[in-house]
């Protein structure tokens, strides 16, 4: 189990030492990714737990169970695809070192059962992602990264306050002590992590950071960094002090799922469409916060990586992120993989998105919630019709072999997951897809980019804090 954390960090250190030799460091990165992936089959099939050091309850606990599995798998696949896509570009050993250390850190967050250790590893993952967002040193990226930094470190200070209160009440940082913690501590822990979650109003830094990051970094941000809060929410909600969160998440999640879709439908920048969809899909995941949302997190990480890589490579080749200018310029191969990703995110049968999304919609608690979720998935289909109706041209030129390998791995996982998990009632997911495509054909004349007023730093900060105060009120209401 420790090898999952230890191997990638070791590979990262090797890359850092061999910084100047570009070809060596990419090989080291691939070998390390495969090595830590080959550990996975030995650990994920049975529950296990260890405590590091001979300190009893004060030691750092590591454990593995069925909630951890989808996140560990998605981390491996996303990292492998990202590293494959980045070969033969101008990245040096420092980039691969950061990616590999981030890989080890993420694994360590998913395994850890100690509240303070989670704080340290989440902060480490955030610091690495700040550096990666501004890796090309453009002022636009530096600004997006700085906005993310200010909001996220403010939020994590609230988290630290929360676990301080937990320590005062129970005398331990172990995760089991949350069982006896007060509601105030749980609100502070929730509010601190919510700033990284990608929920609408809580994390308005997200569209800017995700759409301006380099090609290889956006999938990591959208597929893995955002999942930290999803994972920790699913984990914490099983403790009794967090029981108010289930009701609060139904409101916040459905709000986020619908507003994110409205912004995405109206956007013209392809990477911003994907960034707004991250907000919407996180809302989907958190509506019913249990094992099904963990698996939706897995499938979301895979298809979002495919979409971000395809869109990033196309826009780097054509020099524009405006999808309306792509029509007639993209090759058939690129179009095929873009289509697989789009069908997966709208929930077409035989793809992974369909399987996990239908489970969430059918597991919703009441009929009105189910209707709202269906509206959100109609909107998803509407905004991805933009990609489905692009016209490809027939050319004999293929993208580079490593890029195609990354695409094939990701779409193979999408289709395999879609076929294994398929059940007959899921055919009804064709209906919202068809409704969405029809709505797009009718309404596409009226779509205009919405104002980005909420994404300015001051409004992002104030909307986060206002929603935080509202959540405190909700928590007191629900827990009494």
């Amino acid at each position: 189990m420790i090898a999952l954390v230890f191997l990638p960090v070791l590979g990262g250190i090797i890359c850092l030492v061999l910084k100047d030799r570009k070809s060596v460091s990419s090989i080291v990165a691939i070998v390390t990714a495969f090595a830590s992936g080959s550990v996975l089959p030995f650990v994920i099939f049975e529950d296990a737990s260890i405590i590091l050091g001979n300190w009893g309850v004060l030691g750092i606990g590591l454990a593995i169970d069925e909630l951890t599995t989808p996140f560990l798998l998605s981390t491996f696949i996303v990292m492998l695809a990202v590293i494959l896509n980045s070969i033969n570009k101008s990245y040096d050993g420092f980039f691969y070192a950061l990616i590999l250390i981030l890989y080890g850190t993420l694994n360590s967050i998913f395994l850890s059962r100690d509240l303070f250790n989670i704080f340290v590893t989440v902060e480490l993952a955030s610091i690495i992602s700040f550096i990666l967002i501004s890796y090309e040193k453009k002022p636009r990226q530096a600004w997006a990264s700085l906005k993310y930094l200010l909001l996220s470190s403010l939020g994590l200070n609230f988290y630290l306050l929360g676990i301080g209160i937990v320590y005062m009440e129970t005398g331990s940082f172990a995760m089991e002590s949350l069982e006896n913690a007060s509601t105030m501590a749980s609100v502070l822990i929730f509010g601190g992590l919510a700033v990284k979650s990608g929920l609408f109003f809580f994390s308005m830094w997200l569209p800017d950071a995700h759409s301006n990051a380099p090609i290889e970094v956006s999938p990591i941000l959208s597929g893995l960094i955002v999942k930290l809060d999803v994972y920790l929410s699913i984990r914490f909600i099983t403790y009794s002090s967090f029981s108010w969160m289930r009701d609060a998440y139904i409101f916040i999640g459905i709000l986020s799922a619908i507003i994110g879709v409205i912004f995405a439908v109206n956007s013209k920048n392809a990477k911003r469409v994907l960034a707004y969809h991250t907000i919407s899909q996180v809302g989907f995941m958190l509506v019913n916060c249990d094992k099904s949302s963990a698996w939706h997190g897995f499938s979301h990480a895979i298809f979002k990586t495919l979409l971000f890589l395809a869109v990033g490579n196309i826009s780097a080749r054509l020099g524009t992120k405006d999808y309306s200018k792509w029509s007639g310029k993209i090759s058939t191969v690129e179009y095929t993989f873009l289509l697989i990703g789009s069908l997966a995110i709208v929930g077409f049968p035989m793809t992974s998105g369909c399987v996990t999304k239908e489970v969430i919609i059918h597991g919703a608690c009441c009929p009105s919630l189910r209707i709202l979720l269906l509206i959100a998935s109609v909107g998803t289909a509407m905004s991805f019709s933009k990609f489905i109706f692009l016209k490809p041209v027939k050319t004999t030129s293929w993208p580079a072999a490593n890029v195609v390998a990354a695409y094939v791995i990701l779409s193979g996982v999408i289709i395999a997951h879609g076929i294994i998990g398929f059940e007959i009632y899921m055919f009804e997911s064709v209906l919202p897809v068809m409704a969405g495509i029809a709505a797009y054909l009718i309404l596409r004349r009226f779509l205009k980019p919405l104002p980005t007023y909420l994404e300015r730093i001051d409004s992002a900060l104030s909307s986060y804090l206002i929603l935080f105060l509202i959540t405190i009120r909700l928590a007191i209401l629900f827990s009494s």
Partner: protein
Amino acid sequence: MTGTIVIYFSISGMLVGTIGMILSKDLIKKILSLGIVETSINLMYTGISARSGIIPPIVSGDFSNAFYADPIPQAVIITGIVISFALLCLSLVFAIIIYNRYHTMNVETIEMIFEREER
């Protein structure tokens, strides 16, 4: 007693820093306010360990009736101090990148320039 006073003091410091982050328009002042929040939270952990006493937790000779400070929050917050130091350094680096390009630290001006560039 000392511990409780320190904890309330540090929580009020946190509120002051948060309000400063919202109200100030200058980028450096925003970063400094974040520094205030981080320092306050580090102080709070010292306060938590001082609740059981303020004698340094170094065991020597007879320690049966002395009120020692709790060593665990002190030990873990060292990592927190290092992290807040790293975050402040990184944010100042980003501020330098932005200043070198646009020669201003006013948040509203910077965002206006970016929105004009995107059109």
